[in-house]
């Protein structure tokens, strides 16, 4: 196991494992040595966390800026405000008549946003020589998105909303969230609806910006050719944020019974999503649930259904999807599409879930699932954007940046009893969302 470097930032870096960790400390038996590059973090006086993980492979910097305003915090009648605000940030003029998005692109870089349950992430990637300028542009746009573009963005958002509504996978995911996250903005469609978007005003945008403009909850996570001057420049940009805390995110109503919801779409074959409660990423049950995800057969990583500025909605997703960026999380298994024996697949899943809750899973199977979970964990973070995402999530944990290296150790420590316990605790009271072909007679 490598030691995390004594980096350029002294800081409160190792809040680390000595503090009250939500998860058990990893054991150090015969587990494989592995670690991410050395990372540091510091907390500014106003609460902003700056995390940094340098690597010298290419002179490119990637930075994720997390602001504490995401899907959960959207008011019920303002669904879509998060995506419209984020789109406005990208279209804000920052260098004369050049927008933030254009400024990054002209330099060969890019800037994008992703809506997460509890925050909005802005990702900037560029040559190290352009970083200070473009990062300043991003910070300015974040604080003052250009509302003169609101009408155009509303039109675009409505088009996106209408398109996403037709996607059977998005429809199934939305139905699941509608049940399991009632009482929060996460129960609403990522993209909003044409009705709510049409009603969004400049004042709504300003209110949403104000809701996330706080030191606490803001995280800057830097990857790549990060140097001390670049980190200092990043810290300087955010040191003027108010030293305040955002309003607590609403919590969803508990799911107390089974639900089955049906919708119709123009699809050739039906889709089914079967959803269960799951632990969040900082829970002590996180690692066992990652192994369960591997046992079920992961269909993709936690980003698979993200609403982003630069990715299309998934057209084909079969398998388990573990949404752990919100608490409680969800384990959703998608079945269908081209699968002609959907009934059998649902029965197989139910049988599989029942056996996870039993005690007949072999050591061999668990060992292989742990390897798969470990592989999925590492191989899902190879690009700077994913590495910076994980770094930021780790920095926000009670363990600090050490979190990202502790998770693999915890995965390897998972025992059969952990799987059974976690399955029994979470894999009940399922929500079933069914998307049927719209054609008559089916």
């Amino acid at each position, binding site marked *: 196991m490598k030691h995390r470097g004594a980096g350029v930032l002294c800081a409160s870096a190792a809040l680390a494992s000595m503090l009250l960790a939500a998860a058990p400390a990893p054991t150090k038996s015969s587990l494989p040595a592995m670690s991410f590059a050395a990372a540091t973090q510091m907390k500014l006086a106003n609460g902003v966390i700056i995390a940094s993980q340098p690597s010298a*492979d290419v*002179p490119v910097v990637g930075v994720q800026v997390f602001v504490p305003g995401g899907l959960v915090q959207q008011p019920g009648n303002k669904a879509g405000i998060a995506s419209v605000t984020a789109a406005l940030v990208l279209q804000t003029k920052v260098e004369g008549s050049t927008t933030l998005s254009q400024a990054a692109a002209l330099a060969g870089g890019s800037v994008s946003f992703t809506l997460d349950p509890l925050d909005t992430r802005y990702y900037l990637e560029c040559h190290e020589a352009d970083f200070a300028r473009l990062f300043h542009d991003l910070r300015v746009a974040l604080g003052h998105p250009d509302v003169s573009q609101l009408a155009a963005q509303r039109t675009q958002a409505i088009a996106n909303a209408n398109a996403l509504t037709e996607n059977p996978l998005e429809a199934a995911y939305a139905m699941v969230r509608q049940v399991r996250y009632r009482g929060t903005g996460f129960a609403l469609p990522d993209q909003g609806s044409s009705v709510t978007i049409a009603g969004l005003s400049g004042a709504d945008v300003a209110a949403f910006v104000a809701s996330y403009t706080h030191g606490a909850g803001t995280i800057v996570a830097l990857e790549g050719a990060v140097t001390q001057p670049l980190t200092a420049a990043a810290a300087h940009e955010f040191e003027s944020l108010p030293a305040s805390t955002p309003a607590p995110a609403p919590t969803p109503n508990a799911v107390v019974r089974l639900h089955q919801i049906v919708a119709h779409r123009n699809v050739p074959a039906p889709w089914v999503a079967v959803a269960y409660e799951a632990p969040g990423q900082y829970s002590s049950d996180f690692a066992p649930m990652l192994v369960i995800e591997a046992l079920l057969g992961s269909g993709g990583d936690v980003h698979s259904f993200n609403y982003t500025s630069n990715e299309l909605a998934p057209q084909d997703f079969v398998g388990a999807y573990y949404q752990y960026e919100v608490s409680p999380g969800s384990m959703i298994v998608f079945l269908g*599409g081209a699968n002609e024996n959907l009934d059998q697949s649902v029965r197989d899943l139910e049988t599989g879930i029942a056996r996870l809750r039993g005690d007949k899973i072999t050591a061999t199977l668990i060992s*292989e699932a742990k390897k798969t979970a470990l*592989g999925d964990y590492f191989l899902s973070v190879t690009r700077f954007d994913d590495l910076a995402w994980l770094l930021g999530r780790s920095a926000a944990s009670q363990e600090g940046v050490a979190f990202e290296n502790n998770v693999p150790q915890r995965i390897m420590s998972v025992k059969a009893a952990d799987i059974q316990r976690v399955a029994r605790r979470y894999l009940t009271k399922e929500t079933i969302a069914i998307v049927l072909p719209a054609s008559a007679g089916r």
Partner: protein
Amino acid sequence: MRRFFQRAHAARRLRCGFIVSMVVLMLAWTGPASARQDPASPASDTALATQPSLTQFPDGLTLVARRATASPTAAIEIWIRCPASGYGAPRPGLARLTALAVVDEKAGGPSLREQARMAGAQIAVSVYHESTEIALLTPAYLSPALLDTLVSRALRPHLDQAAFESARQRLAAQQVASMDMPDQVLRDSLFAQLFASGPLHDSSFGDPKTLTGLTLDDISAFAARAYVPGQEIVVTVGDVDASDVSKRIAAVAPGAGPLQVMPESSIAPYSDTPISLTRESLNAGGVAIGWVGPPIADERAATAMDFLSDYLAHPSEGVVTKVVLGADASTMFTGQFVTLRKPGVFYVTASGAKLDPMLTSTLIRDAVRAAVRQQLSKDEFERARAAFITHLLRDMQTSQGLADNYGWYFAQGALPYSPSATDASLSGEYFKQVASLSPDYVFSIARRYLQVAPAVIILPRGAVHISGTR
């Protein structure tokens, strides 16, 4: 420069992975408990230089081992320089069938594919006109063991009937899937139009008829000729110990074999009269346009074409890209200069449910003409070159990105010219060539290669047979 076309396969791989997993979960509960140990092969913690280590073994095998530390993963790849359609009379799909058999060969135990899956790694087979790639992406701590497995199975493969049958089924499925991808269909058809013969003429997927006629003897004979050390490179990039890699490969490297001559691909006489595909189309219309460019031996000209490709057809910022997407944002547009021994090819494809192929063809050709009509101003050239360099570097941020570039340029006989053969200060031949570019030189290359008539392929929209048979 080479880019990648693997995203379209991702969903299909995930679906297969899930089905396999569910079957395992359904069947394995009743099996005996095993005392199999968890992976516990600690990776070396030795500090290593970040400079790539290039080794040429006595048998001719080439090794590049490069340390990259951004993520605790490693890309382990074997590239074989070989024609996709074989050495004699063309048998399209032969190299792909062989490579699929290599990863499905059990050799008395789990296959390479199964071992990768059980270890939590990912395996991919990519077959190009003049090279085959077998690649593993793995957590770094597993890389020594998986490297051993990969080189022992793939450097000098021995194939059996079961592996052949498995590979044949996979290739048949891939052939069907490839027909669902308009850009794949368009690209293959364009190359068939540009080249009259040789490996560049045929699709690497082959066709069902040829596949039916191929046997275990065919792929074994092909492997014996193609998979010889002098035509192979092992590339490891990531959190790996270069000296350890070298020792491991030296221990298992096979004996030398005779080098084979890559069959030539002759340029066809073509005009810019659009050729309509006669097969029944997908639910999309499409167009492909291609220009023959400089060979890789002319490094400066090839680099200039890479620059032009980026300027014209970058996925979001290319000037032609913007014209095409401005007309219809739902269009799938791709474009690149493919660096090849002789000659390279610059091509673009556009496809979409609403796309009018003829109109789009005109749109693209007009946009290219307008873009290369005059020399770029010095300021615009400098900005575009800086953006080009940043695009290149961003593509090289992962172990896979770095490894793939080494493999591709090895296969084209120009390993030192690989963009990956550089460091953070952008030393290396490729970036020196980029630095040497000037507005007037790039303009001269554009005039020479892009102001001539291209080959044009049209994929009619809707279920239409242009041949009139229906």
